């Protein structure tokens, strides 16, 4: 029988400062870039048009650009989309959104006729067209913001209901960290942010929170079980105990998201990439952000028996002093119980 990380006893918390450094190295440049250049929002948010065309043979983006330039459409982005003979032409409304409603639809028609002129009518087929007016775009921005905001509120309420506030605070901060890294990730890869990607971010919030909750659930259980250990040890113990589950669950989830990244086509790719990254960052933050944060919170605002205050006494993993630890079984001990 295969056992991964069974009875592991890694001192995860010891490495927290390295983890902070690593995550800061990801977040700070990515987030600065985000502040300076913003994100590559899809036309759903900005308003504008998108036309996906397929040509029988690859014609190159230059020819498409030429066709559009000839028709006087200069502000279009042209991209290969998944295959060398698939292209996506995007035009965005200005950030000011001054153009009237209905113009994006007219633009879509103009792009189509420009392509008909430039490439020849039978030489391409339009796979999809999207035309979004500025009003819809603005509304959707508001909706996306509301979605993120409300999911935070609901999450907070749920955590408050489920855990005491110290745990909740640590979990929310860890989730916030996940959002920051994900924004940085989206920025590095210059992924297009559509509503579906916002959906992926929200799912990620749920997923990462779920991971944190499972560790915290164990922490709470262990705090009751081992009265003499300090929080540092309890956290390490809990992370180690839940490690096999983490590896397995992330393994299976990652298998599905990677399948989506590689096989589900271009439209879903940004979504799938964000989800894949979310599994990384969710796991990482549950272990290296949420757990140490819980320790700091406990130290700053000690709970009942002030066990958090004792957390920093030991610098490294201390053998468990409890009388009933889940001590590693003797080789061949309980393992022999399982059929091999």
């Amino acid at each position, binding site marked *: 029988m295969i056992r991964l990380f069974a009875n592991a006893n890694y001192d995860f918390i010891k490495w927290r400062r390295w983890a902070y450094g690593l995550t800061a190295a990801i977040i700070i440049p990515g987030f600065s870039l985000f502040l300076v250049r913003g994100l590559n929002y899809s036309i759903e948010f900005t308003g504008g048009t998108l036309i996906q065309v397929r040509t029988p043979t690859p014609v190159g983006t230059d020819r498409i650009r030429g066709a559009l330039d000839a028709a006087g459409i200069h502000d279009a982005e042209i991209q290969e989309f998944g295959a060398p003979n698939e292209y996506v032409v995007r035009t965005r409304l200005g950030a000011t959104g001054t153009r009237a409603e209905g113009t994006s639809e007219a633009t879509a028609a103009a792009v189509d006729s420009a392509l008909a002129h430039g490439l020849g009518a039978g030489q391409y087929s339009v796979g999809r067209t999207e035309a979004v007016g500025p009003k819809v775009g603005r509304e959707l921005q508001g909706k996306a913001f509301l979605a993120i905001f409300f999911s935070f509120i*609901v999450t907070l309420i749920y955590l408050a209901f489920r855990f005491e506030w110290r745990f909740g605070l640590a979990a929310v901060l860890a989730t916030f960290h996940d959002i920051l890294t994900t924004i940085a990730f989206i920025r590095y890869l210059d992924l297009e942010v559509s509503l579906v990607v916002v959906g992926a971010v929200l799912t990620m919030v749920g997923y990462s929170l779920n991971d944190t909750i499972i560790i915290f659930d164990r922490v709470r259980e262990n705090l009751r079980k081992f009265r003499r250990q300090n929080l540092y040890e309890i956290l390490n113990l809990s992370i180690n105990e839940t490690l096999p589950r983490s590896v397995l669950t992330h393994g299976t989830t990652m298998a599905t998201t990677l399948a*989506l990244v590689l096989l589900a086509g271009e439209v879903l790719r940004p979504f799938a990439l964000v989800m894949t990254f979310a599994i990384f960052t969710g796991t990482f933050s549950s272990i290296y952000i949420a757990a140490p944060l819980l320790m700091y919170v406990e130290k700053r605002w000690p709970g009942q028996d002030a066990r958090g205050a004792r957390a920093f006494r030991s610098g490294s993993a201390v053998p468990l002093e409890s009388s009933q630890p889940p001590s590693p079984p003797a080789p061949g001990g309980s393992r022999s119980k*399982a059929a091999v």
Partner: protein
Amino acid sequence: MFYTVRSRLITIGILLVLSVWALIPTNTTQRVRDAATGRMKDTTVRRVPINLGLDLQGGIHLALEVDQSKGPVPDPADAIRRAERVVRTRIDEFGVTEPVVQVVGNNRLIVELAGEKDPARAKGVIQRTAFLEFRITDMKNLFRDALPEIDKALRQAGVKPAGEGAAATSVTQLFGADTAKGKAKHPKGKPAPKDSSDANAPGPLSSLLFQGQLPGEYLVPEEQVPVAESLLARPDVRRLIPRGIELKWGNEVSSRAARSYRALYAAEDRPIITGEELQDARATRDPLTNQSVVNFTLSRRGGRIFERETGRHVQDYMAIILDGRVQGQPPIIKGQIGQHGQIELGAKPLQEAQDLALVLKAGALPAPLTIIEERTIGPSLGQDSINDGIRAGIVGVALVVLIMVVYYRWSGALAVSALTLYVLFTLAGLAAFGFTLTLPGLAGLVLSVGIAVDANVLIFERIREELQHGKLVRTAVDEGFTHAMSAIIDSNVSTALTAFILYLVGTGPVQGFAITLIIGIAASMVTAIFVVRTFYMIWLQRRPDMATLSV
């Protein structure tokens, strides 16, 4: 309640039967346009009753709002509700399966046409406000008589005649012969147009207009249309247009002598009848002349009005004005018309007559609509998406199966067989509640397979721990399920909450994702906890002395 294996198996059996029943292909009635006759007919299609989103089956999604840019609409909310009814009638005639026409908020209309391949035509039919009026053209040439005044005013305002051809005459007799023929043909016609030489010196407006074949018809060279439009829009010009006369552009461009002209009609501002009185319209092809015609029927009240008006206007020309555009050349009123009339479209294709009939019949939109969002997905792209999604799903699920079976062996196999039930339940849930499967929904389905096994992973890990602590197999299984429960519920609730918010604020495809995720979570709770537990119970019942567990 579920303490015995028997009651559990019965429950699973019932769920299974319900799910399969929900997924049995059913007969769906579909209205399609018969290509030969142009009539609608019902056909029956047998398919699995899962609604596919537009992004999977191809189609058109439109969001429309009342267009207030050309003047405020008093009650947009009421207008949009009435527009919904009108659009629905038109769409039903259009012949797509399960069209969606729905008012969102208080001033937005969502129209979704699955499988429709011609977005331009669909938009045309939907957006045509179809405000239909029949008006008599300017038989007394009041507008032409007012042209000198208008020209004078324009000259005073410093507007120079455009174009080089603006040399001598005002309203040029471009087709003098035609007009003469027309006069000859209709001796009872109104006073013949005055001789063009009567007109004054070249004028900024009149130099753009050429007298057409009918009284009140003028032709404007296509390239001059914007100039003429801007001149006619001037307040000083509008003041001088004779009382009771309104100018309307024609809907089509005709070309004569290698130049394209657009017709401009001067017509009475009072319609003799509007589309409100119209009850039915049908397109046919006249078998004798092979011409396309539209036969229309008016309401009884409309018939009386029409009879009276047409009686007064025999041999006058009647402009059919749809949404402010004169449709084709105004036909002549050949005699008194009552409740039943016919519009001859000449050699125009039948399709055009059908579309006209459709629009006439489906009634007028109370206010013009503007498209604020449009998405069109070709059917082949949708099919590609389904194929890609299914491929990704199969590979993803295969990997999950592999991981679970290799890692947990027999227990893993139990979880995997429960997973097939999970997929079945999820799809059945989508079908039973009438939710739509979208492309992101497909991704959600694949993703939730990965997440669904989490519950089993939590349980199995717990069982392993309990076994490690030296518990008996039966106790370890019991404890494993009990102890893992709080973590399972926690994780599922947190995911379900975010999915629910996503559903509330999302649009179509994203809602599809949220729904699949929520149904998936519910189904996974049933399969991972209840079904797997039952499997274990059977397993332990068959081998009560089992000392080891394959987990």
